């Protein structure tokens, strides 16, 4: 065969073929080399060596800010009704829903007049209120009865009609003579910058500021209402141009909002620092409430939402935002949509058609509440292991989370508590969704040292109490 080929194929041709084959496989070889280097690089990083100064007290630990949740509109029904009990157990402060106009047929038209029917939306809002939470209603999307071309993502034919829709919505839920709910949040649109939701821009032909302005006009016209809050821009990320445009627009802005789907928890903290630096030149907005109205590690459906990965990521994000963080962090989302039996849904709970099962991330919020108290100074965090410490009524608590995006890093973490008084201490170690152990130890000096084994994506709380 080889001799036959040599005879039939000219040397020049065979050279060209050889060269072509090499060039074809070159990218694969380079990619393989690159991946090898990346794999080796993942092995580097800094191990944690945690030191907690038990006398260095800081500010109170906030525990309410992460008890807020978003629910997307994968169904047009009241998605939360089947899981109301499970949602109540999360002790939610605010629950956010969007698609309030298009999924619930709120706005109609009779001749030249707009008609309003909130009965379907009321069912969803009633469910939210029954869980103990306040509703956040995302003013979305454009009711077909008033939209250009009847499209949900287009501006209205008449901007005054959009203002009227917003006015009627606020009067219905916040109005003292109607639903009479106090403290409702109204967010103008959802992810306006996304093509799926209209590709609105800060200015120009399809201006979000114009959309917001007429919403604020509607809010101003709403009468006989309880306290309510209007804000935005609910963009896919935190963007300076959108934030500064909104705060300088001259409209009523009661809160600023954006979405964060970031795998690196530390970016959440950096976003907060950036935001404050943008707001400092605007003193009247520096203290404005800030809300991350959708948060997760990816905006795509991902099976990791059903694993400890999501729980560890949430704990790591809370750690990054425990001081100087937003007013509220809304985890997306409470319940899977239908047909996600392969486990790639965003939800904390699977759809009732898939067993209505809670996923690991569901339990992390109440677990983190165990850290309530006054924050203590903690140093020595590593690349993967991070944490925070607190003291409450004499019990010192240290929370550690080992979050590894690649899912393989295990670490034995040394923890030293300094400035202790000598005595007998009870040490309780509580692993998230895992084992609890309790030991006693006599401390003769001013410090206590422990070693904690932390598998990848593990979360643990160490509680240390001195016997009287």
């Amino acid at each position: 065969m080889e001799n036959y080929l040599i005879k039939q194929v000219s040397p020049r041709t065979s050279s060209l073929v050889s060269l072509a084959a090499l060039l074809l496989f070159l990218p694969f070889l380079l990619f393989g080399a690159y991946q090898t280097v990346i794999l080796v690089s993942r092995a580097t990083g800094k191990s944690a060596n945690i030191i907690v100064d038990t006398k260095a007290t800081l500010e109170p630990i906030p525990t309410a800010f992460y008890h807020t949740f978003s629910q997307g509109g994968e169904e047009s029904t009241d998605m939360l009704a089947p899981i109301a009990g499970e949602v109540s157990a999360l002790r939610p402060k605010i629950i956010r829903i969007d698609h309030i106009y298009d999924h619930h047929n709120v706005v109609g038209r009779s001749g030249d007049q707009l008609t309003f029917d909130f009965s379907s939306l009321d069912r969803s809002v009633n469910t939210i209120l029954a869980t103990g939470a306040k509703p956040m209603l995302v003013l979305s999307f454009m009711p077909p009865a008033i939209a250009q071309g009847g499209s949900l993502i287009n501006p209205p034919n008449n901007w005054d009609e959009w203002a009227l829709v917003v006015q009627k919505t606020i009067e219905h839920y916040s109005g003292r003579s109607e639903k009479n709910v106090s403290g409702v949040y109204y967010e103008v649109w959802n992810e306006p910058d996304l093509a799926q939701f209209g590709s609105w821009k800060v200015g120009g032909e399809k201006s979000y500021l114009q959309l917001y302005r007429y919403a604020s006009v509607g809010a101003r016209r709403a009468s006989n209402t309880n306290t309510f809050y209007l804000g935005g821009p609910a963009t896919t990320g935190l963007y300076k141009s959108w934030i500064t445009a909104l705060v300088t627009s001259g409209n009523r802005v009661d809160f600023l909002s954006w979405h964060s789907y970031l795998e690196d928890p530390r970016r959440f903290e950096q976003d907060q620092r950036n935001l404050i630096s943008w707001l400092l030149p605007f003193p009247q907005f520096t203290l404005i409430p800030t809300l991350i109205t959708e948060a997760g590690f990816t905006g795509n459906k991902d099976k990791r939402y059903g694993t400890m990965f999501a729980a560890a990521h949430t704990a790591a994000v809370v750690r990054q935002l425990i001081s100087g963080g937003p007013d509220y962090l809304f985890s997306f989302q409470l319940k899977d949509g239908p047909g996600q039996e392969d486990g790639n849904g965003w939800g904390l709970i699977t759809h009732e058609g898939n067993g209505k099962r809670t996923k690991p991330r569901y339990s992390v919020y109440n677990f983190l509440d165990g850290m309530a108290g006054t924050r203590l100074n903690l140093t020595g965090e590593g690349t993967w292991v991070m944490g925070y410490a607190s003291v409450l009524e004499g019990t010192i608590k240290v929370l550690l989370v080992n979050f590894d995006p690649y899912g393989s890093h295990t670490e034995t973490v040394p923890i030293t508590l300094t400035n202790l008084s000598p005595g007998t201490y009870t040490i309780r170690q509580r692993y998230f969704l895992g084992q609890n152990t309790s030991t006693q130890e006599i401390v003769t000096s001013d410090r206590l040292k422990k070693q904690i084994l932390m598998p990848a994506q593990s979360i643990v709380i160490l509680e240390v109490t001195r016997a009287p």
Partner: protein
Amino acid sequence: MKKLLLMVSILVVMVAIPVTIYLVSQRQELRKKAAPATTLAFSPASTAKAVGSEFSMEVHINTGDNQVIATELHIAFDPEKLEAITLTNGALFPNVLTSGLVEAGTASITVGAPSNAQPVHGQGTVAVVRFKALAPTSTPITVSFASTTLVSGLGEGSTNVLTGTTPGKITITGASTDRTGPAATPSASLSLNDEIDASLSAEASASAVLDITTPTASSAAQRDRPTIKGKAAPGSKVTLTIYSTPSTVIVTADANGNWVYTPQTPLEPGPHTIVATAGDGSDTATESFVVATDSGVPVSGSAEPTILVITLALILISFGIVYGKLSY
């Protein structure tokens, strides 16, 4: 002509009234907006502390006529003399807008007033910084406000209403009289290191001669915060200076003559030298060591050189094949 004059007069009056109203309102706005008048100072203004002691300094604000909404604080100090342990908000500013960040030589935090309806007006504490005295000073050192410190006030726009700052002065004396831990414990007693290895207390020192036992020149590449151990006369003070960028700390040998220190700040990769000096200056010991990457793992190789070598190799192979085939 008379009619024309009358019309002109009416026109002038019609224009003058709104213009006058506008000008008056502008002057009123100017009266509401106060000139920047806020000052910051440390309290106490000056203090003396012993090496190894921990102490707090408050940052005080006097807002003058300003209605202060937020303060972005940047503090600078000598990292060889002082270590900032924590920086937290004061009572006057309950909102922590960005959490306190302490690093070698700097500390920063941004704090906010209770609300826009309750801006800060008057005097009080903005923040509290907790320091540790690292080394004695021959003259008082200053803790100052960096030029990036900013105070914002309602009605002032983006203007920094901070008009003046007063640094604090600290004198650090050589002997520590402010130990926080028990002095009689048998474990290694360190004035500057938070990492005590209790097992060291079990080793009896055979000699009171000053020595650095680890790391040494023959040691493997170290992590960026290597554990430095040595021996000295029991209870004596040893001054450690670590080069390349010199940093100096003082440790105390325990009852068995052992001392240990781990740098708080990671060392840069590369060669370093430790010089240990006995407290009375009568003896010194020197050792050199190498710090590998910040994780202590040797560099595995970056992607770019690898890719370049592979590409060159493939080009050579290609030429070889082509040349060989052509020759054949």
